C-alpha cells in the first residue's frame, strides 16, 4: 500500500499501533458497563478478583492478533468464547453481548485515519472490516451456543428434580407394599 510516496504495510501499521488500538478497543468495551464497574474492570489487576477484566484483556489481545496474523482459528474461537460466555449471562441483549466486536472497527478506524487517506484508507478498511465482520459472525455462533448451554443446564436441573421426585414416590410405594 502506498501513502505519500512511501510503501506502508497495513500489518506493520497494525502491529506498531497494537498497544494504542487495543487500549482504545478495551476502553470502548468498558463504556458498555456502568461507570463504577468500568473503573473496577480497568484498574483491578488481580485475575481472580477481576476475572471479567482479565478475560477481556487477554481475549481482545488474541482477537486483535488474529486480525493481523494467521492465528489458529481454534484460538480465535476460544478467545471469543471466553468473552461471550460471560456476556451471554450478564444483563445484555444479544446485540450488546456480541456488539463489542464492532467496537474494534471504531478503534481501528480512528488510528488508520491518521495513517491513510482517500482510496488507500477505503481499501485498507474494507479488507480489515470484512475480517472483523467474519469475527462477529463467529461471535454470534458462540453466543447462541452459550445460550443453548444455559437452557440445557436448566432443563437438566428440572430433569434431576423430576427424577428425585420419582425416586421418592418409588421408595414410598415400596414401603407401602411391605
Amino acid at each position, binding site marked *: 500500500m502506498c501513502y505519500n510516496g512511501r510503501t506502508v504495510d497495513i500489518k506493520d501499521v497494525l502491529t506498531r499501533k497494537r498497544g494504542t488500538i487495543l487500549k482504545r478497543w478495551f476502553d470502548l468495551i468498558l463504556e458498555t458497563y456502568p*461507570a463504577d464497574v468500568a473503573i473496577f474492570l480497568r484498574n483491578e489487576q488481580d*485475575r*481472580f478478583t477481576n*476475572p*471479567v477484566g482479565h478475560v477481556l484483556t487477554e481475549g481482545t489481545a488474541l482477537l486483535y492478533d488474529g486480525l493481523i496474523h494467521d492465528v489458529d482459528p481454534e484460538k480465535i474461537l476460544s478467545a471469543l468464547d471466553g468473552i461471550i460466555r460471560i456476556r451471554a*449471562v450478564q444483563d445484555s441483549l444479544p446485540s450488546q453481548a456480541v456488539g463489542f466486536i464492532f467496537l474494534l472497527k471504531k478503534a481501528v478506524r480512528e488510528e488508520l485515519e491518521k495513517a491513510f487517506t482517500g482510496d488507500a484508507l477505503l481499501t485498507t478498511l474494507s479488507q480489515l472490516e470484512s475480517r472483523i465482520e467474519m469475527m462477529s459472525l463467529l461471535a454470534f455462533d458462540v453466543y447462541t451456543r452459550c445460550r443453548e448451554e*444455559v437452557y440445557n443446564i436448566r432443563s437438566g436441573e428440572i430433569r434431576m428434580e423430576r427424577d428425585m421426585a420419582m425416586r*421418592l414416590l418409588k421408595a414410598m410405594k415400596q414401603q407401602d407394599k411391605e
Partner: protein
Amino acid sequence: MAEEKLKKPEEMFEVSLTPGTGDWMEPSAGFRKGTYCYGAPLKHQKYLDLPNQREWQPSNEDWKLPPDWKETILEGMERLIKRHRSFRLFLDICVRCGACADKCHFFIGSGDPKNMPVLRAELLRSVYRRYFTPEGRLFGKYAGARDLTEDVLKEWFYYFFQCTECRRCSVYCPYGIDTCEITMMGRELLNLVGCNIQWVVEPASNCFRTGNHLGVPPHAFQETLGFALDELKDLTGIAIEAPINRKGAEILFVAPSADYFANPHWFTFLGYLMLFHEIGLDYTWSTYASEGGNFGLFHSMELAKRLNAKIYAEAKRLKVKWVLGGECGHMWRTLHQYMDTFNGPADFLEEPRSPVTGTRFENAQSTKMVHITEFTADLLYHNKLRLDKSRNDQWKITFHDSCNPARGMGLLEEPRYIIRQTCNHFYEMPENTIRERTFCCGSGAGLGADENIEMRLRGGLPRANAVKYVKERHGVNMLACICAIDKAALPPLLEYWVPDVGVCGVHELLGNALVMEGERERTTNLRGEPLAAGDGEGDVR
C-alpha cells in the same frame, strides 16, 4: 418491572451499547427471566402460616401487598433495630469506604453496581435514614434518604435475593459490618408483607411437615437407607447396619437430606455409612431430625428456630450423649452461631468425646454438636483407619471452602487434612479464593432455583474462574466440598464455566480410600466407575 416485551420493528434498529446512567437512588429491578426466583406457592405459605397469603410472582405488576404494607415494614424495621443492636450499628457506621465493593461474587460476575455490598446495604439504609434519623427526615435525598415506595420494596426483593449471605464482604470491612445480616434483616422485612421465594419457603414447609427439606417421609427414609446398604454390600461384600430412631445410642447423627436423596451427595452418604460401620460407632439416624440444613435461616430467625428445635428435641427423646453433623454449609452456621441461643442450653447432653480416640471436642462443649470432618480428621490423626489412597488416583482434587463452614465457623484445616490423607493428588486454588476468602458457589441462601440459573451462573463465575486456573495448571478434574448446596449447585455451574470437572464430598473420598475389615477386592469406586489401572495395590496405611 413487568416481563420484557418484544420490541416494535422500528425500535429494533436502536441498538445501544452503553448502559443507562441512572442515579442509584432511583429504584430499579429488572425482573428478567433467568435472573430471579419464583414467589412462594400459596399452599406452603399456608402451611407455615405466613403473612399476606396469596398467589403471586415477582414479575407481576401488582404484588397484592396488604393496604398497610408500608406501616408494617416500618414497624418491623423499628422492631428489628431494637432487637438486634448489630443491625442498628451496621446501618449507622458504614462510611462507604468501598472496601467491600469488589468482593461480592455477584458484583464481579454481573457487573451490576447495586450488587456491591455497600450499595446493596444502602438500599435499606436509605429508608432507615428517611424514617429513623433526624438528618434523613430533614434533608431527604440530600442526606441519602429515600421514601419507602412499592418500587423500593421491589428493588429490595430483587437485590436481597441476589445475596447468598456468604459473608465474604464482611471479611474485608474495616468496621466489621456483616452485610449478610443486613440481607437477613431485609428478607425479614419482606416476609412481613408476604414476599419470599419458592426455593426458601417450600423446603422450610417440607421440613416442618416431614422433618426434612426434600419432604422425605419416615418410611421413604428407611427405604432409601436400605438402598444404600444394598449398594454397599454389592461394593464391599459387607452387610452394614444403620440404626434409625434407636433410643440409648451414644450419638445422634444428623445430615442434610440431600445427602440421602440427591446426586452427587449420595456418595458422601455411602462414605458416612462405611466409616461408622468400620469404627463400630454407637449411633443412630433419626427420621424426625432428618435434616441438618435449615432453610428457615434464609427466611427469618423465628422460622430458623422452629426448624432447628427438632435436633435437640430428638437428642433428648433418644437419650443420646451428643450430636454429630454431616457435610453441610448453612446447617453449620445455624448450629455453630444460633442453635445454642435458639434452643439451648443442651444441658441434658454431654461434652462430645470421640469413643474411638478419647478426644474431647472442647470447641463444641456448649452446642454438644461436632462436625464430621473434625471427627474424621481426629480418627485419621490417631491412625484409626486403614486407607488406600490410590483408589482416588483417577482424580486430581481441589478443595472449595464452603462459605459457612469456612467463614461461619473457621473450619479450614480438617477437610484438607482428610483429603491429604485419602488422595495422592491435591492442589489448592489461589490463596485469595480459598479459606476465609473463599468465593461462594452463587446458589446459597435459597437462590439455587433452576429459574434463577443466569443469576447463579453470574455469581458462580469467580469460583469457577479459580477452578479453571487449577484445571489448566494441574489438570484438576474433581472439586471436593463439604456443603450440600455446593454439591447441587456446582455441577451445573462447572458444566458451563469449566467442563469436565466433577464435584464430590470429602467423605466420598474417604469412602473410596477406606480399607474395611473383611471387604472384598474393590474394582470400582463408590460411583461404580472402574478404578484406574494399578489401583488396589497401593500403599495401605
